[in-house]
């Protein structure tokens, strides 16, 4: 099965700090939320992107990765979960 890519990104910053994360996200047009269980990891989401696409959003990924404040950006794959 071909993977599906979503408008959610896992982003790791070089320097941990919510203020910096907010600024980085805003500059790139993303919303942001800190992941409470891990240091330096943030959830970036982009409301202008399709919620599910067959192709990676390479433009956004590269844009994020070019930012020197960002250590890593990973676009999240989508998968099925069902109500029981």
């Amino acid at each position: 099965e071909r993977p599906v890519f979503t408008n959610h990104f896992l982003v790791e910053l070089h320097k941990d700090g919510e203020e910096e994360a907010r600024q980085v996200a805003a500059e790139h047009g993303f919303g942001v939320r800190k992941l409470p269980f891990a240091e330096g990891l943030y959830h970036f989401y982009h409301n202008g992107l399709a919620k599910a696409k067959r192709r990676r959003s390479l433009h956004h990924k590269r844009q994020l990765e070019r930012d020197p404040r960002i250590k890593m950006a990973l676009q999240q794959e989508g998968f099925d979960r069902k109500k029981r």
Partner: protein
Amino acid sequence: GYRDINEIDINMNDPLFTKQWYLFNTGQADGTPGLDLNVAEAWELGYTGKGVTIGIMDDGIDYLHPDLAYNYNADASYDFSSNDPYPYPRYTDDWFNSHGTRCAGEVSAAASNNICGVGVAYNSKVAGIRMLDQPFMTDIIEASSISHMPQLIDIYSASWGPTDNGKTVDGPRELTLQAMADGVNKGRGGKGSIYVWASGDGGSYDDCNCDGYASSMWTISINSAINDGRTALYDESCSSTLASTFSNGRKRNPEAGVATTDLYGNCTLRHSGTSAAAPEAAGVFALALEANLDLTWRDMQHLTVLTSKRNQLHDEVHQWRRNGVGLEFNHLFGYGVLDAGAMVKMAKDWKTVPERFHCVGGSVQNPEKIPPTGKLVLTLKTNACEGKENFVRYLEHVQAVITVNATRRGDLNINMTSPMGTKSILLSRRPRDDDSKVGFDKWPFMTTHTWGEDARGTWTLELGFVGSAPQKGLLKEWTLMLHGTQSAPYIDQVVRDYQSKLAMSKKQELEEELDEAVERSLQSILRKN
């Protein structure tokens, strides 16, 4: 534990209360009287969920519903599908997003307000975590939901999972595992978040050990029984299920379903599936937490094992058996149906169980062929890390981490037998699973059936095929992971009921301690002589 059903008097004016047979079964909808969660006893003792918050990870909650609004915890709620603090369900004309609202009502619907029915923990608070209503789930959304407000939310209830189509093998991904580990270690001020999971709706075609959420040690997975004590047709069986609650009946009686709140201020009599079972358990655990807020995530599992009852649960295929320390279990129902009254009474006096250790009991790494007929039988002899810091003497969870390929994955059967002779069915036939490429890659099959046993000795793994055509397979790895305590978990517990599982287990532990003391004395005398 016998109570005359006619002597119990609960005054609730909620119109659906008399239809909530799973709370108080007087034989409604052709059910079996007494086959219920025994919440009446817990309520009579004064436990109604006060001070406890349950998070419903689902498609949202109708927090304006008059039966939920009072108990809604807005501060602990969030909408991860829309990124805002208002987890209200998205409207569809078929009311598809009623699932979370129905689950929430089972736990926290207010009592005696003349609306719908009553929640199991009707004075608890409920938080909405909207995360299920989106085209695709992501690891980051699951992880965020599971780790949302772990100091405000005590219990997380999940009535979802990978597709129960009988051919999926899937579970939590990396971030979600990290979040769950963080939750059990740091949530609730270090006592651990409690994750309750619906065991799955795939029926006899599926096996809940192929669902990594339900089979996780960090979740309490809950199966369901119907109102006459049989298993529901959609119930899956597996060795990781810890206990059961109730869901709708097989009969077409419209009142045999689970009565709860529904969207837009409505009520329903028709909530069903193992989805309906997990929130009932979350409610019972909320009552136990009110009785003792110091309970850890592991204490809750011990209490579940010790207080769940066989009651009148029965199944033609899977019979009740006793494990090596005498605890009665069933492959479908786990340790039985939750008993809220027994649980709060035991919780009240409960002393936190000793520290948990992990031991790699051994590993088979050489590839072994699984024959088309007969079985591949492997053994591992372990001392459970005795003599080391991480010695595990009293088992809690046991995992068999297995890498195996087969020409037809669904025909593969895996059983594991403990040194004390308890056989766990780790994987049963899934006729729809025709995978021949992926197999299981370091998949952690889990069993709770050896709870309390001594891990030392020889473990046996049997792999074989059941199906119409001959198949071939290759086992590449079997690693035995033992989890439990070094010291006796029940020896310091207060026993109030001398017929209880706790009394039996404590007696065994005392006898073992005595034997060991005598042994030590004898050796000391022998050395002196």
